[in-house]
């Protein structure tokens, strides 16, 4: 295929050529970044979370007196365990993705304090007895808390509990003691210290923020006795078969409301809470998908419109070429090659632009760096789109009969 005549013809139509190249470039650039952002959000929405999400429902009990709330816990739990379908029940301070975050910073040196820059910020989860089973934490190393751990832990006047045992997630273990077993190691925040008795699979924090995936899993667990909980244990978690969750949750809400006439109860399925947490991300992702689709359509129609116009304008020349021996395939090829060149120029420019936009977004909007393969993939996508869009007009051009050449327009 000779491309010189195509270039010559494009040079004659300089303005439309530049316009269509620019359009393709811009579409390519926006597409790259939009698809990248969609991918990031989908990844966040799907972050794994090592608890039995599909089996959990919960009821939050607020408004009860701090002084009696601890002694009410065993009574409340006994009532909840009596609900048919409940496999286990426990009380906790907070749950992953609940937005109810209690963060604290710890270090591996005995003199570490929260104000050190070298300390690592975790989210603290306080567990009532049996919460490991109710949540479905997955033990990787060591052991869960035992009855003595629970009995020995309470809140005094300090903001951290009076205990010395802790469970950490795999991410915390690797961050604090890279390459070593975390079992038996101790982390500190003056004057508190906690020794790791078990490592569990990664559990998300109540707020996952935007500091990267590892950071989202910096969670640590502490035992807390009901009597010494000082109002910090208010979320009742119920483990049941997925099909029983709704019924179990409503029954639990009613039981807790009846037992605590002064309290406020609010029930929810865990999966609903997770969906709510990511709802704005999901709507942003859909919005990006929509804009991408519409923009691709507009670009495709632009190509169709312009090529159709060129075909109409060149009917006579096409007729002459056909009369002097060009086949339909040659005519088709002409327009397809022309489009290939236009799209090619567009995507080359577009990839540069996409990279530039990503740099700008990284600086101003805390976006991550776009992996390189997004560029060629969206280039190929736009190339394919261009070829698809040009197919119609090219077929119409190929259908021009040679006899057109003999008519004087």
């Amino acid at each position, binding site marked *: 295929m000779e491309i010189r005549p195509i270039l010559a013809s494009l040079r004659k139509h300089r303005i439309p050529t530049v316009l269509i190249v620019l359009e393709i470039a811009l579409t390519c650039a*926006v597409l790259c970044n939009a698809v990248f952002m969609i991918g990031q959000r989908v990844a966040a929405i799907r972050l794994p979370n090592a608890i039995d999400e599909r089996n959990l429902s919960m009821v939050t009990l607020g408004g009860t007196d701090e002084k009696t709330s601890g002694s009410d816990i065993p009574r409340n739990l006994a009532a909840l365990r009596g609900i048919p379908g409940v496999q286990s029940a426990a009380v906790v301070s907070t749950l992953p993705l609940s937005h109810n975050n209690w963060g604290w910073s710890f270090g591996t040196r005995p003199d570490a304090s929260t104000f050190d820059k070298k300390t690592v*910020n975790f989210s603290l989860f306080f567990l009532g007895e049996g919460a490991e089973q109710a949540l479905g934490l997955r033990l990787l190393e060591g052991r869960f808390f035992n009855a003595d751990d629970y009995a020995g832990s309470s809140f005094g006047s300090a903001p951290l509990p009076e205990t010395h045992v802790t469970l950490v997630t795999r991410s915390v273990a690797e961050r604090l003691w890279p390459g070593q077993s975390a079992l038996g190691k101790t982390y500190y925040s003056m004057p508190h210290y906690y020794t790791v008795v078990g490592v569990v699979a990664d559990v998300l924090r109540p707020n996952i923020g935007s500091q990267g995936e590892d950071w989202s899993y910096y969670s640590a667990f502490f035992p807390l006795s009901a009597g010494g909980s000082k109002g910090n244990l208010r979320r009742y978690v119920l483990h049941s078969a997925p099909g029983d969750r709704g019924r179990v949750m409503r029954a639990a809400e009613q039981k807790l409301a009846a037992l605590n006439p002064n309290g406020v109860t609010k029930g929810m399925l865990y999966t609903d809470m997770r969906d709510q947490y990511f709802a704005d991300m999901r709507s942003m992702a859909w919005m990006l998908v929509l804009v991408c689709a519409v923009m691709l359509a507009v670009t495709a*129609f632009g190509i169709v419109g312009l090529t159709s*116009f060129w075909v109409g304008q060149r009917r006579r020349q096409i007729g002459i070429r056909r009369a002097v021996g060009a086949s339909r395939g040659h005519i088709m090829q002409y327009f397809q090659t022309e489009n290939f060149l236009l799209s090619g120029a567009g995507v080359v420019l577009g990839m540069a632009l996409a990279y530039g936009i990503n740099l700008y977004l990284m600086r101003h909007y805390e976006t991550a760096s776009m992996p390189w393969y997004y560029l060629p993939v969206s280039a190929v996508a736009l190339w394919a789109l261009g070829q698809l869009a040009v197919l119609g007009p090219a077929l119409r051009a190929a259908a021009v009969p040679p006899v057109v050449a003999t008519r004087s327009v």
Partner: protein
Amino acid sequence: MFGYYLDLAWRSLKRTPILTGLMVLAIGLGIGASMTMLTVLHVMTDDPLPGRSAQLYTPHLDPLPLDHKRRGDGPDASDNLTWPDAMALLKAHRATRQAAMAGGSLLVRPGRTDLRPFYVDGRYATADFFAMFGMSFEHGSGWGAADDAAGARVVVLGETLARKLFGGADAVGRTVRLGDSDFRVTGVVADWAPQPMFYADASVKRYSDADQFFLPLSAAVDLKLDVNGNFSSWGQDHAETRMTSPTTTWLQFWAQLDTPMQVAAYRQYLADYSAQQKALGRFQRPPANAKLYGLMDWLAHENLVPNDVRLQLWLALGFLFVCMLNIVALLLAKFLRRSGEISVRRALGAGRRDIFVQLGIESALIGVAGGALGLLVAQLGLWSIRQRPDDYAHLAQMDGAMLLGTLVLAVLASVLAGLLPAWRACRVAPALQLKGV
């Protein structure tokens, strides 16, 4: 001539319905998407208190130690004031009115069998709060400075809560149990929810419903009521002592300053106060760090518009630009195709200007149609935003100005897109084209 050109444009557009449709669709979608996002940005950055915002200022001090560093994406500790500083500013009384405040969420126990306890959001404030923000009382009034000093157990209710608790009856003088204490109702205010809630702590929801109770800050501190907002400490403060600690910030402070002279004097006062505190050894940083923000400046400083919204606006504008490029190319094709017709008109005596105006009117007509479609698309877009879970979602409504803006933007965009093609078309050499016809 205008009518004639309009007629010509109409005929020309009717001749190529598909191409015309594509152009109208492109401009409609581009404009619709852009106007949706512009409207969201507009409502989010709008003046929350028109007519009053110019007199409202919020003072900011910098009591942080020299070596204090802000942690990651955590809130700025100097965004709020400490209790001693807020009380000093309040007592100095340098502004026409001033009030310190903090948000709170309390359990209401209705004392009725048909209503279970429930949580409501409200505000702990000082006496000037109501007059300074121009709130209107349905019944009764606020409380006085004496109540502030005594930590009186009094409360002003929002209209909605008052109706929920007492039905249609006058609530003034009745008692409400909030948290674990009883408060006497002194007044009921009409629901008041400026958007954004400029006076609330930066780290809590800012586009939310009206506060439903207001009670003296001193009472809240006495009772250690829960605060909805950020406590930033840099000393060794315990939960028991942090409210009145000189090393914990948690209070918002607003002042009404009516004249530029008052504003200048207040700035000077803040600098002097900081210098004095530094001399006393309490502040470590330069007194010039003390700032006085106007209401709109403060909102700009806090940057309430989420990054996602800005990104979406950029995306929508990029999309509009792609649509415009598309229309330029299509119009160019369309106009140049009519070289013959244009040449005939030129040969018959039409000047380049006439051709240019004629083609410009044709582009504008596309713009008007595209604008109408854009309005529909934008309404659809705003409807979909109102279904979102974000706190600002319920605000996404177009006002008259945005409605008009949509049409103007659409016509402007299409006329702009028509400029280059019209210019090219009116430079067609008539003789060359007529030979071929």
